[in-house]
C-alpha cells in the first residue's frame, strides 16, 4: 500500500472524460420495452365482466363496475374492471388470469395529471392516450394460471352400449372430480345463466374441499333433482362458463352428478335437515309429477305444506322418466331424487287425470292453492300426406311405451323426422332395439336444420352416429309414400334455410332437389304441444294469454290471473327440465307468499 502505482493508477482512466453522457434527456418520451408492464387496456367487447381479474388482484386495485351501454346478458355480467392506480403495482397477474384474454398492459408508463381521480379509470371505456398502443405485456401462450383442458369423462364405447339401455356415462371418480373442480375460477357467470341460479361455484368449491354433504346442501337450495340434472340437464351454464372462452368449459353437469352420486339416499334427510320440518295444515294440489311439479312439491314440503300431486301416469317424473331414455337417465337415479321428495310427506296420486277423474273446480275447493305443471305431452305432426298411416308414430308416445315396457313396433327400416334432443332420443332408442331384433341398424334421422344449427346437443348427434344411425340434416319432409297400404319411405326436398331474417320460423326449400329415404316405419319428432283441456272454459277465459294463445303468468310467482292457480314448467317456459325446476321453486315461493298474505287477511 502507498506505492507510487497506487497514486498514479487512478489517472489512467482519463479517457472517461471523452465519453458521451448516458443520461436520458427526455424521460417522459422514453419507450418502455416491448413487454413492459405499463397501463391497462381492455377489449371491452371481448371482456365478459367475470371479475377473475378482480379476485386475483392482491392490491384490490380492480373493481368491477357497471358501464353505460353494456347490458347484463347471459354470459356477460355487464360489468367491466375499473383500475385504481393508487393501488395497482403492475404485476399483471390480472392479465395472466383474464378468462377471455381481453385485458392487457401497454408499454406506456408515464402519465402526468393533476387530478387524482383520473387515476381510477375503466380501461377500454375511459379514453386514454395509450388505448391504441400495440406493445406491452401480454400473457405468454404457454402460461396458464388454471388448466384449460377438461378432465375427460369415462363412458361406454359404442360397441359396449349400442344394443342395450345401460347408462353410457360412468361418472367422475373422486380424483377426476377434484381435478375438474379445480379448474373453476369461481366467477359465478354460470349461476346467472342457470335458470335455477344454482350456486355452482359454491358446490364446486365443496367438491374441492371434499365436502360432498355441503355440496348436496348447496344444490338442494335451488334444485331438488340433482341426480337427474346431473345427467340430462341442458347445461346452459357450461355454454357461458368463462373458462370456456379460451379453453374447455367446466363439466358443471358431471360435477353435479358426482356430488349427488356420493351421498347415499339414506343420508339425505339428516344432511338436508328434512327430519325437522314444522308442518302446517294448509294444502296445495299439484298437477303433474314432472320436474316443475316435483320441485314445487319439494320446496312447499320443506315449508311445511301438505302436498298432493296428481299424476296421470303410473309413475312420477314426467318427461324425465317417460321422455328420456334409460341409457341417459337410469330409472333408479330418478327414483333416488323422487323418493327423497316423497319422504317429506308429499303424496302422489298416480293414474289420476285432472279434468277426467277429478275436476279443477274440485281441487280449487279442496285445496288452498293449485300448481299446474302438466308439460307438453302431445306430439306435433308434420301433417304431410301419409301421416295418418298406422306405421307413422309420434316419438313421444313411443318413448313413453318404452319406459312402461309396452311393446312397440320396431321395423327393419325406420326414418325419424326431427333434429332436436327428443328426435335423437327416439333415434338412439330405436337403433338399439333394431340391433337387438335384427342385429343391425337401418335408421335415418332427418331434420330441416343443417348440422351446424341442429337443435340437438352435439354429443347426441355424434353418439347417434356411433350407434349406427344415419343423420341427414337439411331436408324438409314432403310426403310419406304409401303403396298397397305399406309405407315405402319418406320423400324430402332440400331445405335452404329455416329462419327468415327476423329469425322467425319460415323454411325455404329447393323443390328441385329431392331425396327419398326408404322405410317401413316413420317417427315424427318435431316438437310437443300442451293439452290444457283440464282447465274449464270459464276459467281459461280469465287467464291472460299472449298472441299465440300461451298462458301468461307472473314471472316471479308464476301466479295466473286466477289467484289460487299457479302454472309453470314446459307449458309456460322451456321446454327443459331445469326451467321446470326453477319455475317450481319460484311458484312454491309464490304460493307461500299468496297463502301467507291470505291468512293475514283472514285473521
Amino acid at each position: 500500500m502507498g506505492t507510487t502505482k497506487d497514486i498514479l493508477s487512478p489517472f489512467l482512466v482519463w479517457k472517461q472524460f471523452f465519453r458521451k453522457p448516458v443520461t436520458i434527456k427526455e424521460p417522459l418520451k422514453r419507450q418502455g420495452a416491448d413487454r413492459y408492464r405499463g397501463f391497462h387496456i381492455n377489449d371491452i367487447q371481448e371482456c365478459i365482466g367475470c371479475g377473475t381479474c378482480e379476485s386475483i388482484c392482491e392490491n384490490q386495485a380492480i373493481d368491477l363496475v357497471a358501464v353505460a351501454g353494456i347490458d347484463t346478458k347471459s354470459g356477460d355480467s355487464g360489468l367491466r374492471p375499473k383500475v385504481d392506480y393508487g393501488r395497482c403495482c403492475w404485476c399483471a397477474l390480472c392479465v395472466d388470469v383474464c378468462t377471455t384474454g381481453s385485458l392487457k398492459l401497454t408499454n406506456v408508463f408515464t402519465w402526468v395529471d393533476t387530478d387524482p381521480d383520473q387515476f381510477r379509470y375503466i380501461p377500454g371505456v375511459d379514453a386514454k392516450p395509450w388505448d391504441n398502443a400495440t406493445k406491452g405485456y401480454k400473457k405468454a401462450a404457454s402460461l396458464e394460471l388454471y388448466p384449460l383442458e377438461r378432465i375427460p369423462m369415462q363412458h361406454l364405447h359404442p360397441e359396449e352400449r349400442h344394443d342395450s339401455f345401460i347408462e353410457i356415462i360412468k361418472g367422475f371418480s373422486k380424483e377426476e372430480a377434484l381435478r375438474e373442480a379445480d379448474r373453476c375460477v369461481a366467477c359465478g357467470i354460470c349461476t346467472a345463466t342457470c335458470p335455477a341460479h344454482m350456486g355452482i361455484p359454491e358446490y364446486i368449491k365443496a367438491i374441492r374441499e371434499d365436502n360432498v354433504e355441503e355440496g348436496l346442501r348447496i344444490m338442494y337450495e335451488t334444485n331438488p333433482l340433482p341426480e337427474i340434472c346431473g345427467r340430462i340437464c341442458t347445461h346452459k351454464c357450461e355454454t357461458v362458463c368463462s373458462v370456456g372462452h379460451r379453453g374447455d368449459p367446466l363439466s358443471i353437469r358431471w360435477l353435479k352428478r358426482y356430488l349427488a352420486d356420493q351421498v347415499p339416499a339414506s343420508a339425505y334427510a339428516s344432511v338436508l335437515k328434512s327430519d325437522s320440518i314444522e308442518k302446517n295444515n294448509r294444502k296445495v294440489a299439484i298437477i303433474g309429477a314432472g320436474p316443475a311439479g316435483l320441485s314445487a312439491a319439494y320446496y312447499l314440503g320443506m315449508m311445511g305444506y301438505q302436498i298432493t300431486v296428481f299424476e296421470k301416469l303410473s309413475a312420477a317424473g314426467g318427461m324425465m322418466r317417460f321422455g328420456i331414455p334409460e341409457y341417459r337417465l337410469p330409472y333408479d337415479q330418478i327414483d333416488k331424487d323422487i323418493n327423497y321428495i316423497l319422504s317429506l310427506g308429499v303424496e302422489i296420486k298416480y293414474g289420476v287425470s285432472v279434468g277426467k277423474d277429478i275436476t279443477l273446480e274440485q281441487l280449487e275447493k279442496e285445496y288452498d292453492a293449485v300448481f299446474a305443471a302438466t308439460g307438453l305431452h302431445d306430439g306435433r305432426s308434420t301433417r304431410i300426406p301419409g301421416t295418418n298411416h298406422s306405421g307413422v308414430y309420434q316419438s313421444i308416445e313411443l318413448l313413453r311405451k318404452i319406459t312402461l315396457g309396452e311393446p312397440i313396433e320396431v321395423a327393419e327400416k325406420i326414418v325419424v323426422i326431427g333434429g332436436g334432443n327428443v328426435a335423437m332420443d327416439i333415434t338412439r332408442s330405436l337403433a338399439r332395439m333394431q340391433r337387438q331384433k335384427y342385429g343391425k341398424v337401418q335408421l335415418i334421422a332427418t331434420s330441416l336444420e343443417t348440422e351446424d344449427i341442429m337443435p340437438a346437443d352435439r354429443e347426441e348427434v355424434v353418439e347417434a352416429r356411433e350407434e349406427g344411425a344415419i343423420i341427414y340434416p337439411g331436408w324438409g319432409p314432403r310426403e310419406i309414400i304409401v303403396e298397397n297400404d305399406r309405407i315405402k319411405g319418406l320423400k324430402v326436398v332440400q331445405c335452404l334455410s329455416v329462419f327468415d331474417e327476423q329469425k322467425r320460423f319460415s323454411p325455404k326449400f329447393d323443390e328441385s332437389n329431392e331425396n327419398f329415404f326408404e322405410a317401413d316405419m316413420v317417427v315424427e319428432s318435431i316438437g310437443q304441444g300442451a293439452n290444457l283441456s283440464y282447465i274449464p272454459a270459464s276459467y281459461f277465459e280469465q287467464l291472460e294469454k299472449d298472441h299465440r294463445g300461451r298462458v301468461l303468468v307472473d314471472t316471479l310467482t308464476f301466479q295466473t290471473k286466477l289467484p289460487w292457480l299457479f302454472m309453470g314448467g314446459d307449458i309456460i317456459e322451456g321446454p327443459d327440465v331445469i326451467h321446470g325446476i326453477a319455475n317450481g321453486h319460484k311458484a312454491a315461493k309464490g304460493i307461500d307468499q299468496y297463502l301467507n298474505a291470505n291468512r293475514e287477511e283472514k285473521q
Partner: protein
Amino acid sequence: MNKQGVFSLEGDRSKYPQPGADGKPEIDLSSHKYMKMWQGPNHPGITGNMSVELTVCADEVVEAKTHVGYLHRGFEKLMERRKYIQNFPLVCRIAVPEPDYNELNYATAIEKLTGIEVPEKGLWLRTLVAEMARLQGYLMWLGGMAGAVGFGTVGQWSNYLRDLILDRFEELTGARIYHIYILPGGVRNDLPEGFADRMEANLKEIEGFMKDINRVLFNNYVYKKRTVGIGYIDPAWIYPYGIVGPNARAAGSKNDVRKDSPYVKYPELDFGVNTATDSDIYTRSVLRYNELLTDVDLIRQILSKMPKEGDFIAKLPNMMNLTIPAGETYVRSECTRGEYGYYMVSDGSGYPRRVNVRGPSYTHAVALLEKMLVNANIADVAQIMVSLHTYPPEIER
C-alpha cells in the same frame, strides 16, 4: 481487533470506560465524556431506511445500536392473508434491489410442497435472472462503496452499468425493479428475440468499465488508506454471528449455497468460489469485484448453454384455488449477500400459515455491525456499514 494496526485509537483503552460484567462499558452520559450521534435514517452514509445510534467518545465509537422500523411493511404477516399466487407481488418487495431471490425461493418452496416440476428451460431462465440480479446488485453496491469513501464518480459509472442490466430485465420480465418473473412451475416468458446479443454488448461494456474501476478504486492510495485493515471480521465470528456470503468468504469461508446445495442449473456451470482471508473492507470489496467478474462469465455460460426451445413453465393447477398439504420446507439460495432462505409452513389451506424470510442483512446489519462499530472511528462508520452490503427492507419483512 484491528489487524494491521492502521486504526490508531485501538491501543490505549485506559481513558475509556472499562467493560462491566456484561462485557459492555457503563456509559454515563451526564459525565459529558460521551455523545450520542445518529447515523441515519436521513444520511447519505446509511444503506437505506435504517439508522445507527452511535455513542461516541471523542471520535471513537464506544457503542452502536442499529435501529430499524422505518420501513416496516409486515410482508410476512400479510402473506398469511393472501393466496399463494397473490404473494408474488409481495415477495419481490422484501429485498428491493434483488427481488429475484425472493421470487425464486418462494416459488421453489411452493414447488417443493406441491410437487410442481419446473421444465428445463424454466430452470435455465431462473439461473439467468439469479445471476443478472447478482450482477446488478454488486454494481449497485460498488457505487455505494465508492460513494462511502467519497468516490461519487464510480457510483455514477456503476449505476449506469446497472441500468444496462435493468434494461435487460425490463425486456425480459416487463419491469426494471419488481420483476415478478418467476412463478411456481417456471417463469412467465421466454427470452425476447436478440436478447443474448444485447446482453453480450452490455457485458463487454461492463468489463471495460471494470478495468477502469479497478484502476481508480482498488489501486488507489486513498481508497486503500480508508479500507485496508478497517472493518475486520474475525473468522471466529462466522458461526456465532451467522455471517454468510462475501462477508464470510473474505474471512476465509468457502460457503456458497450455489456450491453447497446446488439449485437450478448451477451444477452445469463452471465457476469457482471466490475467497480471501484478510477480512477487512478492502478485501471484501475486491472479493465482490471478483464475483462481479465471475457473474459476467456465468451469464455468458448460461446464455450459451440454455436450450433455445422448450417449455419455460409447467402446466399448472388452478393457482386461484391452490391449497398446499400441511407441511414445511426451508429453501435457500445464494444472493449477493449470502444465504437467502425462505422457511414456509403450510396448514393445508390456500394460504401460507407462516413464511419466514432469512435474509443475511438481519444478522449483518444488526448484531455484526453493532459489534464491528465498537472502537471504530466515526469517519469509518459509513464504509464499514456499506462493506457489509445490507438491505434494510430485507431486515423488516
